């Protein structure tokens, strides 16, 4: 019986331990992520200022990403996945836009969040690409193309949303709120901040499993009970957390809840997505 029980635990652990595969997307270092190195520092600064000002007025998040190549992805595939991964746009408005340029394939794409598909339609995105950006790119004027394109995007989405007066707070409905922070503040924070997600999940589970085990040990004063309770609680918590992070995985992985709480003294220049989602709207082109 006991043997069966151990096998059962082992099996359920293996079932749940297959890690969440995630493609290797670039990290969101700012509003302009120039991985293809086609812009100068001052150009990046200019663009960032424009985009930042726009977000302050309207809460729309526009990000520009340039890449050397797409790792074999279709640009449309890559675009929506990276935009979802970064969670551009506010959570309740889904008002993010990604301008993606892949240098070696000579392809570009405007990826539009759900909330802006009505104003920045496929047709308008297509026209911005065809008639505004492409002519500049053909001449090799990448900065001109990107900057004009960004201006055209801003122009088309300007009227859609206004910044709400109350500051945006993102309540994480996932398990973070279930944890008694004051109880284990430091350790939880430590695990939370510094480790990758799966390790954090395991860390949490083991920690709480251990505590429950200690509790059981105090009641029954039996080492076996401690061990069993420890295992069961750890595994069930792990399963539970993993499921919770499935639906909310994105808010967890990008750490947006953290930078928005700003208790970690992040400077004002730091930037993160607000939780918006994408469904493949927008247009692609090549030059």
């Amino acid at each position, binding site marked *: 019986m006991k043997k069966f029980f151990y096998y059962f635990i082992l099996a359920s652990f293996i079932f749940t331990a297959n890690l969440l595969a995630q493609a290797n997307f670039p990290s969101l270092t700012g509003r302009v992520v120039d991985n293809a190195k086609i812009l100068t520092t001052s150009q990046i600064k200019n663009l960032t200022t424009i985009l930042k000002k726009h977000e302050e007025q309207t809460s729309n998040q526009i990000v520009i990403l340039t890449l050397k190549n797409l790792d074999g992805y279709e640009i449309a595939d890559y675009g929506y996945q990276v935009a979802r991964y970064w969670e551009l746009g506010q959570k309740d408005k889904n008002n993010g836009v990604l301008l993606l340029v892949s240098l070696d394939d000579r392809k570009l794409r405007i990826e539009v969040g759900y909330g802006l598909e009505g104003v920045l*339609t496929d047709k308008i995105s297509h026209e911005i690409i065809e008639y505004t950006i492409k002519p500049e790119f053909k001449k090799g004027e990448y900065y001109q193309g990107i900057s004009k394109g960004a201006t055209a995007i801003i122009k088309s989405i300007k009227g859609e949303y206004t910044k709400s007066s109350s500051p945006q707070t993102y309540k994480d409905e996932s398990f973070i709120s279930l944890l008694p922070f004051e109880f284990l503040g430091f350790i939880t924070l430590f695990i939370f901040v510094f480790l990758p997600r799966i390790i954090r999940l395991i860390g949490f589970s083991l920690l709480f499993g251990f505590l429950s085990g200690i509790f059981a040990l105090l009641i*029954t004063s039996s080492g076996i009970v401690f061990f069993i309770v420890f295992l069961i609680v750890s595994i069930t*918590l792990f399963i539970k957390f993993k499921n919770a992070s499935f639906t909310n995985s994105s808010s967890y992985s990008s750490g947006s809840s953290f930078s928005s709480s700003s208790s970690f003294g992040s400077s004002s220049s730091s930037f993160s997505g607000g939780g918006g989602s994408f469904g493949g709207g927008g247009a692609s082109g090549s030059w």
Partner: protein
Amino acid sequence: MKSFFIAIGVILLAIFIIIATNINNIPRLDENVKASWSQVQNQYKRRADLIPNLVSTVKAYASHEKSTLQEVTKARSNVGKLNISEDMLSNPQLFEQFQKAQSSLSSALSRLMLVVEKYPNLKANKNFLALQSQLEGTENRISVARRDYIQTVKEYNTELRTYPGKFVAAILYPEAKIKQTFIAPPNEQEVPKVEF
């Protein structure tokens, strides 16, 4: 003896905890599947809505491509006739029917877009270019919606077929069934031929 009872108690407790922590998984995942399915339907509908406009624009320039145009119109009306309901998701025949109708519309459309290459006037028409970009965007949205649907169904089916979900389902949700998902039929995997 005492430790034996403790062990039994702990096992019962474990079963209870497993059920308690997983009790909401199946309904939650089921809702996810439904939501992503509505998105798939939504995008397919959007494509169907684009077609009359597209057909009439092409007709104005390429009136003797009648058979291709008719094919598109027919495939569209077949799609419109489909009776879509939620229990279709766990019914392989109905689901396959739906998929077949949509993929025949897809291939009719892609043939139309190939035919169009022969008409430079049409290709220079701004209205047509806009429609083309909309169609492209819609196809792209369809593929995103389909992929999301596949993902949610995968999660749902995995929950139903693995422990502890299987165990919970057997006790609490005996009516829950494995759901159908998209597979690419052989004719969709062929690359359309371009003839010069």
